[in-house]
């Protein structure tokens, strides 16, 4: 430990040591060991050679030396009819086309069909972070942005899963994803989330991330509607270590589609590095290979942008820009993009906010491929970039930027109703299917719980029994729908049926499909047609109002209502009586306290919640203690502190005046000074205490007596006063200014303290 009085260390570094940021570790750029975001000496130069309609070399590798990934890309991704044209184009020119709003998206997608991984990486690496964000917004496939949530808990408690699924649906998530602490609980998790997501509205797609064969079986039983755990990798050895090949994964993709289940692959920077087979290539080049592979496989989309590798990628210089760049390649290749913002890549809340911003304002098919809708400790995928704790931060970011992040504020009363309904639904299903008899206490504990630490409900071992019963008895979604309807949950039964019915037409298998207002919306019927201001996705007025509807917002009525509550009490403590027009005095023993127009008439407490009667009493007492008199004058021509003070000083026989607004801002002024060149000022009313006002009175008296007192200092700990009080202050101040009128005369006020 470094001693606090080390003479050779600037202590600011010790302060910095305590910041959450210092828990993040950063890695040196080291291409040979795979630590390079955008380029490495080992990355190939873009190239393609075609002979007789087939590819004979690609990115510097001859066809007979192709590894499995090259081979798959050459056979299934590259369109030989476009490749020569696309590869011959200048990369800088293509980069400019990506950010040129006049170049249509389709023209760029067509070129991507003929581009190799090295070419795609070469082009996007020429864009800075802002250009990448802009190009991403222009190139993403579906116009309307969406979002995905994690719904899990540390006990695999099905009651809580149902309640949290319903809550996530109400916040507006288009997809929810669960996984288990104990893998054999998969079936219970699936049933619980399927039921919970049918509460409130229908259309939220649901997946249960589990072992591949099990996941497909759960899907066939009708409980889930999409899958995204089919991972691909950018080097052959990593792929084999992941126990798959491009062909096995592509076969799985076809298998999912054959069961009517929406599917996307997963890939992201850092996975090859984590798994130890990076071939000294840059993260971006390896990821470009993954993405070309995915398009070749014919999957509609990808979960991409670091994912499990995001925390590692964020340790590397330019790593976060790289995550954005790989997302750009994904959408350029016309894939649906669930754009990461998933695994929490930092302990720094500033880095979290910065990470999400481009996606929030640019939009994405699924901005987070797992926003933790539950508390961080309940997130069985590991904490997300945003978790339940930070939900309202995200909602406010949407409001700040008038950006549609896919979510909508949820009023408290609605949330508790939905949670109760969801818990009742899953309990009914359990009872009807003889899977369990949850008690009223279990249910109530879950309805109000923020997280599983607070519940008295199912524990993982009991859940395993339920899960195995669902699986062994071959229970399907049809049984669950029947159970819901039998117990009177007809609407929820209908909602659940509607989700399963999606697979009959397969409309939701198309690129970037989600369900909004009971209709499938995808890149086919909601294509992103951005071509500059006024085009592409725009937040409609009704959507803007939804986004704005966060809780606890102030307006003037609210301020007046709260003041009215204090009015009666102040009337018992103090009386203000007008005794005539206030004129200048030559009484050297007098200090004028100038109060603002609404002081004690419409406003009754300072922003620090002190009664105005107490403020006045403290100042007057302090003045009188020094043998001087306080004259109270109400000004009606101004509400400005400086002018209140200066006007008070000009009336005051001693030449010293105090000006004070109802909110508590106060000044000591002297009659000969310039308006803003006061003697002392309390500008931080919200932290100004009674003793400070007392000191203010004493100092005013001292100045009047010709002394030079130590100014009263209100200590601040650097609170963001502006953000806490400015809305209220502006509303209060408007109440003051509304009472002023030009040239209105000041009034002498007799103040009577009653208590």
């Amino acid at each position, binding site marked *: 430990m470094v001693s606090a009085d080390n003479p050779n260390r600037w202590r600011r570094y010790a302060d910095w040591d305590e910041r959450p940021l210092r828990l993040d570790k950063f890695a040196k750029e080291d291409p040979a060991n795979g630590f390079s975001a955008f380029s490495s000496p080992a990355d190939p130069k873009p190239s393609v050679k075609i002979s007789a309609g087939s590819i004979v070399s690609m990115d510097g590798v001859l066809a*007979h030396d192709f*590894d499995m990934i090259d*081979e*798959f890309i050459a056979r299934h*991704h590259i*369109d030989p009819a476009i490749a020569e044209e696309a590869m011959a184009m200048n990369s800088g020119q293509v980069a400019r086309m990506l950010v040129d709003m006049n170049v249509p998206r389709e023209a760029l997608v*067509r070129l991507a069909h003929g581009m190799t991984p090295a070419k795609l990486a070469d082009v996007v690496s020429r864009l800075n972070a802002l250009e990448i964000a802009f190009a991403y917004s222009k190139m993403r496939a579906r116009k309307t942005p969406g979002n995905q949530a994690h719904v899990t808990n540390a006990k695999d408690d099905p009651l809580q899963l149902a309640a949290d699924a319903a809550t996530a649906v109400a916040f507006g998530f288009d997809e929810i994803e669960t996984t288990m602490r104990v893998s054999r609980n998969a079936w219970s998790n699936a049933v619980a989330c399927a039921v919970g997501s049918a509460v409130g509205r229908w259309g939220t797609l649901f997946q249960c991330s589990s072992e*591949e064969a099990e996941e*497909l*079986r759960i899907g*066939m*039983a*009708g409980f889930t509607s999409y899958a995204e755990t089919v991972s691909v990798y950018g080097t*052959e050895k990593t*792929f084999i270590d992941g*126990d798959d*090949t491009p*062909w*096995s994964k592509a*076969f799985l*993709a*076809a*298998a*999912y*589609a*054959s*069961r*009517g289940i929406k599917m996307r692959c997963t890939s992201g920077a850092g996975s090859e590095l984590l798994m130890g087979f990076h071939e000294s290539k840059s993260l971006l080049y390896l990821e470009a290979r993954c993405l070309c592979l995915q*398009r*070749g*496989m*014919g*999957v*509609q989309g990808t979960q991409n942008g670091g994912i499990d590798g995001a925390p590692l990628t964020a340790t590397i210089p330019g790593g976060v820009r790289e995550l954005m760049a790989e997302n750009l390649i994904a959408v350029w290749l*016309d894939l649906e993009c669930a754009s990461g913002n998933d695994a929490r890549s930092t302990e720094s809340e500033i880095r979290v906010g910065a990470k999400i911003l481009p996606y929030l304002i640019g939009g994405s098919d699924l901005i987070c491929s797992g926003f933790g809708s539950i508390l961080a400790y309940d997130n069985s995928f590991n904490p997300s970039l945003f978790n339940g704790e930070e939900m309202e931060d995200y909602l406010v970011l949407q409001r700040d930027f008038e950006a549609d992040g896919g979510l909508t504020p949820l009023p408290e009363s609605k949330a508790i109703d939905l949670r109760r309904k969801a818990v009742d639904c899953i309990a009914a299903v359990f009872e009807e299917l003889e899977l369990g008899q949850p008690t009223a206490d279990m249910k109530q504990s879950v309805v109000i719980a923020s997280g599983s630490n607070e519940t008295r409900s199912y524990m993982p071992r009991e859940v395993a029994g339920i899960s195995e019963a669902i699986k062994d008895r071959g229970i*399907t*979604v*049809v049984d669950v*729908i*029947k159970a819901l*309807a039998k117990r009177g949950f*007809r609407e929820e*039964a*209908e909602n659940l*049926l509607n989700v399963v*019915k*999606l*697979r*009959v*037409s*397969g*409309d939701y*298998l*198309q*690129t970037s499909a989600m369900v909004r207002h009971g209709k*499938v919306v*995808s*890149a*086919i*019927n909601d294509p992103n047609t951005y071509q500059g201001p006024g085009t592409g996705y725009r937040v409609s007025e009704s959507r803007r109002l939804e986004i704005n509807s966060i809780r606890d917002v102030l307006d003037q009525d609210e301020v007046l209502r709260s003041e009215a509550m204090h009015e009666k009490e102040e009337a018992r403590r103090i009386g203000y009586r007008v005794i005539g027009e206030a004129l200048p005095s030559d009484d050297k023993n007098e200090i004028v306290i100038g109060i603002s127009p609404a002081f004690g008439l419409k406003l009754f407490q300072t922003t620090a919640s002190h009664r105005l009667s107490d403020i006045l009493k403290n100042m007057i007492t302090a003045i009188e203690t020094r043998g001087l008199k306080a004259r109270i004058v109400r000004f009606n021509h101004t509400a400005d502190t400086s002018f209140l003070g200066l006007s008070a000083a000009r009336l005051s026989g001693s030449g010293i005046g105090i000006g004070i607004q109802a909110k508590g801002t106060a000044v000591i002024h002297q009659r000969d000074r310039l308006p803003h060149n006061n003697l002392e000022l309390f500008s931080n009313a919200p932290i100004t205490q009674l003793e400070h006002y007392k000191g203010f009175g004493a100092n005013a008296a001292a100045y009047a007596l010709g002394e030079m007192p130590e100014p009263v200092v209100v200590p601040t700990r650097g609170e963001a006063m502006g953000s806490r009080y400015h809305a209220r202050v502006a509303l209060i101040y408007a109440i003051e200014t509304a009472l002023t009128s030009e040239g209105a005369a000041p009034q002498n006020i007799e103040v009577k303290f009653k208590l």
Partner: protein
Amino acid sequence: MTRKLTLADYPLAETRSAEVKGTRGKSLDDISLDALLNGDVTMEDLRITPKALADQAEISRAANRPTLALNFERAAELVNVPQDFIMSSYELLRPGRAKTKQQILDVAKIFRNQHKAPAIAAFFEEAAEIYERRGLYTHRF
């Protein structure tokens, strides 16, 4: 229907709800909650059909997504393939599961002849060839 589907035909559930049918011929309108409660709707009625996948493939092609269309066409061939055979075939395609090229070619033959799945068969044959060149027929512990 002879003409090719276009983007304007999408979503099929909305533009031609009477023609979109489940495996047992029930239309979307027939698949109602009441029908399900009466026992007239089973999981069979809630499965996608080869026809629906072929239709979606046409739409994907019209949207210039030829690789997605090919996946839907491979999927159409798998609709009626039993789950266990799908899972064992998938297992065989994983690294080191097949010890010889012939094992994969044998499965390809079953897809082609028994399941009338020529695109899947070709896909397995392609894998068999590449796996051989890349030395995947090795023992893995």
